[in-house]
């Protein structure tokens, strides 16, 4: 899946977690802008993992702060 398609699929998965309905850009941060707490992060990561059939380990999660970084990471993890 290319970056655009991956980004679109992730955006759709973020929607139900985007409680305030803010506009999501590559720079949108999960903790700051989307106000994800640790429980939300767990549920959200599980959804992404299942949707793309990948693993995003905690070690990798630590490097991902924004939507753009997540898209890049998922593109890479899909190989």
């Amino acid at each position, binding site marked *: 899946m290319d970056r655009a398609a991956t980004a679109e699929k992730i955006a759709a998965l973020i929607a139900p977690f985007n409680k305030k309905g803010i506009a999501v850009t590559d720079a949108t941060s999960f903790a700051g802008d989307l106000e994800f707490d*640790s429980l939300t992060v*767990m549920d959200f990561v*599980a959804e992404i*993992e299942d949707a793309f*059939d990948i*693993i995003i*380990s905690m070690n990798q999660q630590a490097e991902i702060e924004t939507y753009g970084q997540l898209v890049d990471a998922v593109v890479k993890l899909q190989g």
Partner: protein
Amino acid sequence: MTDLFSKFDPIIAQRAGLLATGITDPFGLVMEQVISPTVALCNGRETILLGTYNYMGMTFDPDVLAAGKQALDDFGAGTTGSRCLNGTYSPHKDCEEALKTFYGMDHAMVFSTGYQANLGIISTIAGKGDYIILDIDSHASIWDGCKMGDAEVVPFKHNDIDAMEKRLKRIPEGAGKLVILEGVYSMLGDIAPLKEMIAIAKRHGAMVLVDEAHSMGFIGPNGRGVAEDQGCLDDVDFVIGTFSKSVGTVGGFCVSNHPKFEIMRLVCRPYVFTASLPPSVVATAATSIRKLMHAADKRAHLWANSRTLHQGLRDLGFQLGTAEPVSAIISVIMPDLERGAAMWEALLHEGLYVNLARPPATPAGMTLLRCSLCAMHTAEQVQTIIGMFERAGKKIGII
């Protein structure tokens, strides 16, 4: 200068806010005198202990105390050394023999605490390029063991067999895999479906570590824990345990049948770079462990206590962590931290000590009053406890 402590401001404020309501500090309790495994003097008041994890009431067992006193006289107050250097005395070896017999396993390694056992074993056996797959509700010592090592850490939803299997399937071919589970999860007192989970882990070529801290001594036909109870202990590669609960003293251990297990004594840093337990402590532990092998009556009484308390609290209308009593922990779910703390204090005034647990130690942001039963609680004490919960619950407006 940046004050390195400013990161603690939110918790300092939360704590100050709670104490400003005039409540007794739930994390500042001092026991002035301990009368028995189930009763202590707190603030001058005789208090029933229902939050000590002293499941089998071994802390004042006369044989256990005698063994400790003898070892104090024979070996002194402490070893002043690492297990690898001058810190292994015959009582340490004897304690490891007791553990091997208790679990029917080939190897046993005693650590200074259970925390260090998890820290040491996990961070040492799972290295760079390996994968750890663990339950999201794992104990802090398990998480810290993961953090200290170099493996990739992959959590899955609590007790969710499918979520675990999906993640196992996605791990790259050929990578080393360690699945970490607990027998009893101490926050809600629920147990893991170990039989199914371990079968899946094995099918995917993973090694399995099970922390049985809260099951030793009373779950399973021989008190070996939840894995024994579910008939899958033979498939567990590493059992982690502690002396700080059923055994009634302090210390931690790992038992295993892995043929190369003994090398851990040289490569496991939280074993090597710390002093060994005092000989009196391991002597009390060894005596206690051997007595736990023949404690069927006490076990039966502990289970009866657990069932009575669970039923009694449920009948009063409290919300509990498990639908049925499946361990010696009965967790009472509080509506929020304020009322949880108020309930905790009301119980203390009644003369009952329970554990107040709050986020981040608890799952899903819950505030819990955790009750851990003891085989030495009498049936009358359990009824007294239920009465205390009723009065306190009504006073605070929870029931």
